[in-house]
């Protein structure tokens, strides 16, 4: 389904947060949430993003939809760098780029009912100016995500975690966007509803050529939905490849560790786990070397000082690890 048309190009994206120093006059410290992330997202594909918790996935998503201004780097959409667009200039982009937030509770206005929240984007962009039709569309969307007429008039705090997440999904879908950044959109859903939502995602992709950037910790979900998968670690992309490449032929030591930690599919399955021991690196302060160096079983002296670049080692399979660089070099 995906074609070779790059719909969103992320070029060397960096995002730093300034942490407030101690006390009134403390020196602020820098937290590197994203360091030199470069990604191309193709039209109509699903790009799965997997990574350690806190590695900057949400930050990446927020940069894409314009909630964070990147410290440096570009985000190219429709031929223009949208990372610096502001105000009215950004408005047309908003409609195309949507996000499902990780924190489903706080991303809903506590004083808006579910219906109002879902309706809101349509009102803003003047989709469906007829109120009755709009209401109908709201209801349709809600039904798509497994909610029903009974949930229309309730406030966020009256929902369960999963229901709130579904409201978020419905809201993002209501705009007919081109790209949706899904930040763990199904983590709070039971498997049957999860299946329903995933099917919905796929159907919309089929029908409308939607593009997803799909952040999740559930590797089977990512595998199921993604065309390509990127593995992130500490603000960097470590490996990126078509989905089967990651699952069948993981290259990066971190990817391997991840795959080994997947929970079993049945009570009787027990597989050996590859544990990453050692000091967990911190995104705060100066960054040198490969971030995994301290925990990687294959680390060499070089890994501690030099940063491996993301290199294509196999067809469409790129990895940032010296283990393979040498092979490529040869």
């Amino acid at each position, binding site marked *: 389904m995906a074609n070779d048309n790059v719909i969103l190009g992320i070029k060397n994206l960096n995002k730093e947060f300034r*942490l407030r120093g*101690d006390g009134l006059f403390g020196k602020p410290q820098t*937290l590197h949430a994203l360091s030199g992330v470069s990604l191309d997202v193709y039209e109509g594909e699903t790009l799965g993003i*997997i990574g*350690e*918790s*806190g590695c900057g*996935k*949400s930050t990446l998503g927020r940069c894409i939809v314009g909630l964070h201004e990147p410290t440096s780097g570009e985000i190219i959409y429709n031929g223009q760098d949208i990372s610096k667009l502001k105000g009215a200039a950004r408005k047309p982009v908003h409609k195309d780029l949507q996000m499902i937030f*990780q*924190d489903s*509770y*706080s991303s809903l206005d506590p004083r808006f009912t579910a219906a109002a929240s879902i309706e809101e984007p349509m009102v803003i962009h003047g989709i469906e100016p007829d109120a009755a039709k709009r209401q109908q569309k709201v209801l349709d969307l809600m*039904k798509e995500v*497994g909610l029903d007429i*009974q949930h229309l*008039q309730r406030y966020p*705090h*009256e*929902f*369960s*975690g999963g*229901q709130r*997440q579904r409201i978020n999904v419905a809201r993002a879908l209501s705009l007919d966007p081109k790209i949706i950044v899904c930040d*763990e959109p199904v*983590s*709070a*859903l*039971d*498997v*049957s*509803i*999860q*299946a*329903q939502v995933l*099917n919905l995602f*796929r159907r919309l992709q089929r029908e409308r050529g939607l593009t997803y950037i799909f952040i999740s*910790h*559930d*590797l*089977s*979900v990512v*595998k*199921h939905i993604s065309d390509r998968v990127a593995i992130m670690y500490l603000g960097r992309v470590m490996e990126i490849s078509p989905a089967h490449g990651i*699952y069948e032929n993981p290259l990066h030591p971190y990817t391997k560790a*991840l795959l080994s*930690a*997947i*929970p*079993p*599919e*049945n*009570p009787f*399955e027990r597989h050996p*786990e590859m544990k990453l021991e050692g000091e*967990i*690196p*911190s*995104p*705060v302060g100066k960054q040198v070397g490969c971030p995994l160096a301290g925990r990687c079983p294959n680390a060499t002296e070089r890994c501690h000082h030099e940063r491996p670049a993301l290199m294509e080692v196999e067809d469409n399979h790129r990895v940032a690890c010296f283990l393979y660089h040498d092979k490529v070099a040869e």
Partner: protein
Amino acid sequence: MSENNSQATETSAATEQVSEHLVEVHDLKTYFHTAAGVAKAVDGVSFTLDRGKTLAIVGESGSGKSVTSSSLMHLLPKTGKIEGGSVMFDGKDIVHATEAELRELRGKDISMIFQDPMTALDPVFKVGTQMIENIRLHDGLDKEAARKRAIEMLKLVSIPNPEKRMDSYPYELSGGMCQRVMIAMAMSCHPKFIIADEPTTALDVTVQAQVLSLLKGLQDTLNTGILLITHNLGIVWQMADDVMVMYAGRTCEYAPMEELYANPLHPYTWGLLDSMPKLSDKAKTDLKTIPGVPPDLRLTGTCCNFYNRCPYACEKCKNEVPPLVEVKPGHFVACHRQNGEESLVRGEAN
């Protein structure tokens, strides 16, 4: 037909021995009184949990899992009320406990990991401060020692640079980090009973594995009982001793984990198991789902709640609430057509 009838038969096994179980919940009912009617969010939930054991609750999103756990802790919003049933913790009646008695239990004997980690931390205090407060409250440590212990706990849940992270505010943490902070807090006071409401949704699998083994370790050393609410069946298989399946406020199936996997009885359970995406799946086909939506909780209580989505539903299902019946030792199910007299064959809808 109504509850009276069902009560007689259900969970008779559980009520016999007292206090041998860590937690005993019997026919718990928690209702929300909203403007447009009474929502029966929890409407007949029964289970028991032994020391050192893990009970997993799975079920439809919105089926009342979190409300059940909130009810155990008496942490319902103003509109919510426990309307019936009993909850015994360590032989103590919790439903009628006073606020002071509950406070004794909360945090010390029972701790809870909330589903929404980012909203469950006080936004205006540093996470370190919140952890230290918690540790000092329960362990009576001095400030320095508590701080040390907090850092230790953060290290245990793999938070990088924990000394520095102690000074972060919740909004500066990623979702997974908040969740780990919550977990660290819940574990820091050696509880007898942990309620973990989707504790690892925001964690990557390596950290998840670590956290789960941490929970296991705690369980082994302290004989802690764990009530694990999750949607991740993989975790259930990994962690649980027993599993309870919930649907629309009611227990619909309750069995030892392996039994449930091997021999699920309730049609909803079947649907659930079938919907799970598998890593081993090769083809990218649509996932199986359970069509339809669950009923409005304000209108339930007169029939089997799953009736409208159940391919096996019969006339009785439409008119009677199915009681929870022990069909095999330890295996309870609430289905008119699975109560021993009749048994369905999975996949053969009528």
